[in-house]
């Protein structure tokens, strides 16, 4: 049995991306879930699977509030920012096997507001603030005593080595930051709409943790996203062109609970996941029309472009040059603005944007005739996930 081509994303919804909200995170997630189900042209009585995010809400709370009476399947993926795209794999498996027919995946958080209320301790840790966490022991016992507490710092060990080994110029990360910011100007929901960024602005910005400058880092945001998946057969009778799950995979680095004791810490988990996802989809990475790449930091995008097989090790700097990743280029990247310029929504905003593109409903950011695209996730100490979605023919 293959899960390739068995299921499709049929409903999407997202809130605005804001800093400071009067709505509770629970209410925000519930409203967004309702909108995603309505967008699909379905009702809550059609939903029999729910995948909530780790840490922010329970499946019971979601189902009770939404009136989902016939729940047959639930699970939670604890892969930090890789969870949203990995959720597609779990949902696709449930649907392909008939365990569930229609699965609702929702995520939301007060990424800005909660982090401001005395919670500097968790600021930027790229994790929900509660629940068991594979990073806690390593951070508290072996990184924090040396002043390293947040992803901007511990990922920078990888970024710095990557940059020096391959002679990557600052302008490569800058090209990612500027492309995302340019695309955000076309997105009325993006936090950074109306605030353009030039490469010079990027290079002049202050250091956060070298080699990261201010605009290498994503935006803490209050927001929510939801998607609905169902079988391809059912999808064909619904409102929108289905975004079919052609290939999907996740991978966990070894060991996943420490960045530094790996054989080669620069070999990221996506290097293992991507070939599986493309093989399942039956396409080469060079056949995709657009890229929605998890971008908690610019350098994470460079590493992932190589891991996807779009270019060789150390070649991402050349890949992102000359407008290749801008709208109008061969591989438009993060057409919504990404975590860097739309807002941090755990990468579910990347899934939502890819589906919107495949529906040909992305407004001024539409990639002409987008038929097939790839979305990735990156989380915790480098967990990876990837999905290839295609517009149903």
């Amino acid at each position: 049995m293959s899960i390739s081509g068995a299921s499709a994303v049929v409903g999407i919804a997202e809130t605005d991306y804001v800093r400071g909200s009067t709505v509770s995170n629970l209410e925000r997630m519930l409203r967004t879930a309702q909108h995603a189900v309505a967008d699909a042209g379905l009702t809550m009585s059609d939903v029999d699977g729910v995948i909530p995010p780790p840490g922010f809400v329970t499946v019971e709370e979601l189902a009770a509030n939404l009136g989902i009476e016939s729940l047959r399947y639930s699970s939670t993926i604890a892969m930090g920012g890789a969870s949203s795209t990995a959720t597609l794999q779990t949902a696709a498996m449930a649907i392909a096997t008939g365990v569930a027919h229609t699965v609702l995946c929702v995520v939301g958080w007060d990424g800005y507001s909660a982090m401001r209320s005395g919670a500097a301790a968790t600021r930027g840790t790229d994790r929900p603030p509660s629940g068991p966490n594979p990073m806690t022991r390593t951070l508290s016992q072996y990184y924090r005593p040396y002043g390293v507490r947040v992803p901007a710092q511990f990922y920078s060990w990888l970024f710095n080595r990557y940059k020096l080994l391959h002679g990557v110029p600052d302008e490569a990360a800058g090209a990612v930051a500027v492309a995302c910011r340019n695309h955000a100007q076309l997105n009325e929901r993006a936090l950074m709409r109306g605030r353009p960024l030039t490469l010079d602005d990027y290079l002049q910005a202050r250091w956060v943790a070298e080699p990261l400058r201010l605009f290498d880092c994503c935006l803490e945001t209050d927001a929510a996203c939801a998607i609905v998946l169902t079988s391809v057969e059912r999808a064909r009778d619904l409102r929108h062109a289905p975004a079919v799950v052609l290939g999907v995979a996740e991978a966990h680095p070894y060991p996943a609970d420490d960045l530094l004791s790996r054989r080669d810490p620069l070999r990221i988990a996506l290097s293992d996941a991507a070939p599986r996802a493309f093989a399942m989809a039956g396409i080469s990475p060079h056949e995709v029309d657009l890229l929605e790449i998890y971008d908690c930091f610019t350098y994470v995008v460079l590493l992932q472009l190589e891991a996807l097989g779009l270019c060789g090790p150390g070649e991402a700097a050349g890949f992102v040059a000359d407008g290749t990743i801008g709208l109008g280029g061969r591989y438009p990247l993060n057409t919504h603005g990404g975590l860097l310029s739309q807002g941090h929504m755990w990468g579910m905003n990347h899934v939502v944007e890819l589906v919107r593109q495949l529906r040909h409903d992305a407004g001024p950011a539409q990639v002409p005739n987008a038929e097939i695209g790839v979305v990735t996730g990156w989380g915790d100490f480098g967990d990876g996930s990837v999905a290839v979605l295609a517009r149903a023919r």
Partner: protein
Amino acid sequence: MSKRADQPRVPDRPLPRPEGLDAEFYAWCGRGELRFQRCGTCRAWRHLPRVLCPSCGSDQWTWEPSTGRGVVWSWTTTHQQFESGMGSRLPYASVVVELEEGVRVVALLADDFASTDLRLDLPVVVEIEVISDEIGLLVCGPSRHHP
């Protein structure tokens, strides 16, 4: 009146609060000794501390001394304050050192060592700053016997 309430409290550098094998690692450091677990069966070194040998599954191991010699694997220099107890040190370099035994550790760059002098594969030594009987922290200093 021994303590004045209006005196601003300078936050301390964050310290590990280790338990189990982590506490054993830091207790050696508290005695000024850098030691890592070494498998009694396949002889593989390991860090972070683990209950079993990930290479062969053995539960036999001892804490064996490291030479402290190694090379710079990477580093990051932090400019923004994420840790109040480190505020007075900004900017500071947190260095990843690959030791001769093959394990990698994080250490703070020694005060007399400029972060601008750091290079990949630069020979360095990891030394220990003893904090208490239970804890010593790692410091990355210049190699005294440059090859």
